[in-house]
């Protein structure tokens, strides 16, 4: 471990990233360009999030990584090991104990507190990207607050599907100013974007950092007659019986059997430990 500088990146790079983070916090939702470094993992595996985490971590921090809510998937395990090796920080799987949480595509179910930092991995930071391919034009649209196009996408959803069918990466307006890509979190998580913790977003390939400070107003875009709805599968969790958590659907066999489980593994486990029982857990016990 002593072979590495603390948290892998050199101090000048971390300083540069911290400046970008501070600027992002000062202008909520604004995409701050930064000089993204090559990281020892491929683009798309969270190079942006890892750089933001590296610049944020201190030796006293407790670090948690989730990938689609789970602590035990390849992406989460390898990033957690990466910082165990390079920063020697303590790691945890428990949301409450962590001070820095790096996440891919989910917000933890447990309410985060003011002394926690949530770091998102972002593949495409520009919410207007698939509507307007020119970066020069999208930057101008952000600076002039021309966001009509974002609603064209929602209009298309309704005209084709009868409802707003965008179910993840649902665009939000931050602090009544910038339209922001919340990274591909399910829209179930959108209401949670107004939280007590600091939220930092890092896009490594696209070289952008942006942020939502604590207690900042975050509004999901919608129409007056088609209001925003946070949706989830209409089931309780089959293991812990939770009705309020976001669920993954798991195919069990080739006979059409399937189960729904909390995508947040830590939340599910803590509920099971506390004695909550879901449908399949009951059957297993019987």
């Amino acid at each position: 471990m002593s072979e590495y500088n603390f948290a892998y990146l050199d101090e000048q790079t971390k300083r540069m990233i911290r400046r970008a983070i501070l600027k992002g916090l000062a202008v909520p939702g604004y995409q701050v360009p930064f000089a993204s470094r090559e990281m020892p993992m491929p683009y798309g595996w969270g190079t942006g999030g890892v750089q933001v985490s590296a610049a944020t971590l201190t030796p006293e921090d407790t670090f948690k990584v989730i990938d689609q809510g789970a602590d035990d998937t390849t992406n989460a395990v390898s990033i957690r090991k990466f910082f165990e090796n390079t920063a020697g920080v303590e790691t945890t799987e428990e949301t409450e104990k962590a001070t820095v949480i790096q996440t891919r595509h989910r917000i933890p179910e447990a309410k985060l507190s003011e002394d926690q930092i949530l770091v998102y991995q972002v593949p495409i930071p520009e919410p207007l990207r698939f509507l307007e391919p020119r970066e020069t034009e999208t930057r101008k649209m952000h600076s002039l607050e021309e966001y009509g196009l974002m609603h064209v996408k929602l209009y298309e959803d309704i005209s084709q599907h009868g409802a707003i069918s965008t179910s993840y990466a649902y665009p939000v307006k931050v602090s009544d100013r910038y339209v922001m890509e919340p990274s591909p979190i399910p829209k179930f998580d959108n209401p949670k974007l107004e939280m007590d913790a600091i939220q930092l977003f890092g896009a490594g390939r696209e070289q952008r950092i942006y942020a939502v400070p604590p207690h900042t107003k975050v509004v999901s875009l919608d129409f007056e007659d088609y209001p925003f709805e946070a949706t989830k599968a209409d089931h309780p969790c089959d293991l812990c019986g939770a009705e309020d958590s976001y669920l993954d659907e798991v195919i069990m066999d080739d006979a059409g059997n399937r189960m729904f489980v909390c995508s947040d593994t830590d939340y599910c486990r803590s509920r099971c430990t506390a004695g909550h029982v879901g449908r399949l857990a009951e059957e297993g016990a019987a």
Partner: protein
Amino acid sequence: MTPLLQVKGIEKRYGARIGCTDVNFDLYPGEVMGIVGESGSGKSTLLNCMAGHLEPDAGQVVFDTRAGGPMDTVTMTEPERRMLGRTDWAFVHQHARDGLRMSVSAGGNIGERLMAVGDRHYGAIRDKAVDWLGRVEIDESRVDDRPTAFSGGMQQRLQIARNLVTGPRLVFMDEPTGGLDVSVQARLLDLLRGLVREMGLSAIIVTHDLAVVRLLADRLMVMKSGHVVEAGLTDQVLDDPQHGYTQLLVSSVLQV
């Protein structure tokens, strides 16, 4: 009466070459101005300078705004100019593909300007889109089809609907009938003439087709090598051309 648009001494150069120079005219509400000339005569440069797509090197384009009265659009701030571009101004491109979003349905195309100025009611936006499809003679059932599934003439009509939906007062048209066959051209011209009269629009039409200006334009400007060589009432210019180039232009039209 205040002119809707006053163009004063507009000049645009591309290095040492002249795009257009020393163009002056006033356009009054409800008036349609035609600009004709051969390829490379500076028609499109002039149009783009007036519409704010190009920055002129000299001169003023004074537009009579609803809120603040006459304002020079060349020196106004970009947000103001872009706001004009999606409310009081409309720009119809020669190729419908340049003016439409090809991956968005016809309804979405028409609704874009409405949403850009703050409409947030899906039902109302859709009703307006359907209404405008009807006005440009496109069947209501095509509202959810993409423009890629439309014929050239329909695309052009859709582009016009998309531009006129916010009730602009000034329309810039760059060869609106170029590339369409004659019967489709005739229908489009009919439609345009109806809309211009009905909505009391002012329009500036750039074309090299004299039949188009004869039908639509009240006044005519003839351009050559970046200069305006002749201007006047359309019938007067076409029936009694004074400048050598205008005489050539008028006599070049094939008689069937």
